[in-house]
Each structure stands twice: as structure tokens, then as C-alpha cells.
């Protein structure tokens, strides 16, 4: 039986890897699910990025944000397509803004998530306008901002519910903490 300490793997690195896998998986599932409108998604994988921002710090949240987009696009078969470039630009902008807002210390999950969703949509429109030269009017920009805001608030609500669930589980079964990380190492998956 080998634990991360035997391999000299940092516990934080292992958690980062686990978060990257989780976020990519959520991204892929959300991309495969049928959608009402082609460009309207909730972006649930952003919750993982927010959790990583709080638990692991801004550098690792940035890494997770990049890799979830790249892996998700790779599996869905749209690597280096317009949609991939739009998603990547949106993710980078949104995680940068979320890190900046988190650093100020004024904002809670709701503000950070709402700003992240808004900036994600704005970044997509910036790519659409500058790289692909598609003209759009202010109505589309306003709609994108409003939808990003709404999805961000919904994501913050889901984040709070998830966090409450896991913290309650940690209180009731303290030994379950990092259980998943140990399982991975026990089965020699890493």
C-alpha cells in the first residue's frame, strides 16, 4: 500500500489533478447533453474553479481553468475550432477576473461567480468580433452580460449547497477526508 508521501507527490498537486479531471468531466457531460439554445450553457465546471480558487490558491485555479477547457474540447472533438478558441478566451478572462476579485477580499462567492460568468461571455464575444470579424450590436452584448450574470448567481448557489454537503460529511465522518485521493493511490492508478 503506497500513499502520496511514499511517491513524494505533493498532496496539493494530487488535489489539483483531481480537480482538473473533475472539471473536464463536468465540461464534457455538459457539452454532450442536449441544449435548448446552442450558446446557452450553465457552465457548472466553473464551480470547480471557484472551489480551487478558495482551497488551493489562484495559480492552481488558473491551471485548472486552462486544462478543463483543453481536455473538454479534445474529448468533444472541437480542439482548435472557433468554439474552442471562444471558450478558452472566455475561461482565461473569467478566471483572471475571479482571481482579481478574490484578492481584493471584498466579494463573496456570489460576486466572484457572477463576475466570472459575465466576463466569460464577454470574452467569447470579443473573440467573435476580433478574430472572426463578425459584427454584433449592443443588444447581443447586453443579453450575453445578463445571461452570464444569471448563470453565475445560479452557480454560486450550487457551490454553496455542495460546500455545505461536503463540510457536513467531513464533520460527521472525519476519516473520509481525502478518501478519494487515497483510493487512487491504493489502486496504483497513479
Amino acid at each position, binding site marked *: 500500500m503506497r500513499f502520496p508521501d511514499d511517491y513524494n507527490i505533493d498532496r496539493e498537486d494530487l488535489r489539483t489533478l483531481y480537480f482538473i479531471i473533475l472539471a473536464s468531466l463536468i465540461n464534457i457531460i455538459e457539452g454532450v447533453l442536449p441544449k435548448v439554445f446552442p450558446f446557452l450553457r450553465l457552465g457548472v465546471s466553473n464551480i470547480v474553479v471557484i472551489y480551487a480558487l478558495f482551497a488551493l490558491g489562484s495559480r492552481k485555479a488558473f491551471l485548472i481553468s486552462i486544462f478543463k477547457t483543453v481536455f473538454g474540447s479534445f474529448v468533444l472533438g472541437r480542439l482548435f475550432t472557433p468554439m474552442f478558441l471562444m471558450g478558452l478566451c472566455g475561461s482565461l478572462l473569467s478566471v483572471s477576473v475571479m482571481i482579481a476579485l478574490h484578492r481584493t477580499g471584498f466579494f463573496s462567492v456570489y460576486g466572484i461567480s*457572477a463576475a466570472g460568468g459575465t466576463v466569460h461571455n464577454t470574452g467569447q464575444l470579443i473573440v467573435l468580433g476580433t478574430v472572426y470579424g463578425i459584427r454584433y450590436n449592443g443588444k447581443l452584448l447586453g443579453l450575453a452580460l*445578463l445571461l452570464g450574470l444569471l448563470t453565475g448567481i445560479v452557480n454560486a448557489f450550487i457551490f454553496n449547497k455542495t460546500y455545505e454537503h461536503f463540510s457536513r460529511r467531513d464533520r460527521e465522518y472525519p476519516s473520509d477526508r481525502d478518501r478519494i485521493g487515497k483510493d487512487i493511490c491504493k489502486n496504483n492508478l497513479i
Partner: protein
Amino acid sequence: MAHRRIRFPDIVLIAVISFSSLWLIARNSGRGGYAEIYYKGKLMEKLDLSENRLIAYPASGSAIIVEVKDGAVRVNDSPCPDKLCVKRGFISGKGEEIICVPSRFQIVIGRGVVDAVSR
């Protein structure tokens, strides 16, 4: 762990984003309030699109007749040879325009309502 309950700065941020987005939507939706008439690149008049009428403008020795009907505007008759401006028909959406190159005549639908001064 950082703050999880909603705080005052969040409310301010969310309010600012929602107001600006609603303002952007409101500013850019609906039909145009007025049409700008250009002749030889100069603004001649701002037409209120709420009342129906026929207006004649002197252009290239003859007259261009502009028709306003139910918030839309078109060129009814023009002295130009190919009559492309007449064939364009009615326009009503914001930013739409009719250009008559031979007569050097242009109609552009503008934003919002006509202000009191130009009326």
C-alpha cells in the same frame, strides 16, 4: 474559506452589471425613432417616423420624394436612372440605411426618440 454568504459589495456589483446590460438591451432594441436625411454628405433633416407623410427634397436638379409610413421610411420616387433606392423598399430597424449614389442622397435610421430641438 472565504466568504460564502452574499455581502454588500456583491449586491453593488450585481446591480451595476444588470443595470448596464438592461441599458444596453433597451438602447439597442425596437424600431428607430427617427431617420436622418443626408444630401452630399451633409445632414439635412431628422425625420420623426411617428406621423405618415410624403416629403420632397431637391436633389440633382430634380426632386426625391421620401415617404414615411407607420414608423418605416422609403424613397417613393427619385430622378436617378436605375431606381435602386426605390427598389430597396421600406426600412425601419436601427442602423438600416438607403443610399442613392447618383443623387448623392442617403437615409439612415437613428436611435431613440427625436429630441425637442431638432423637432
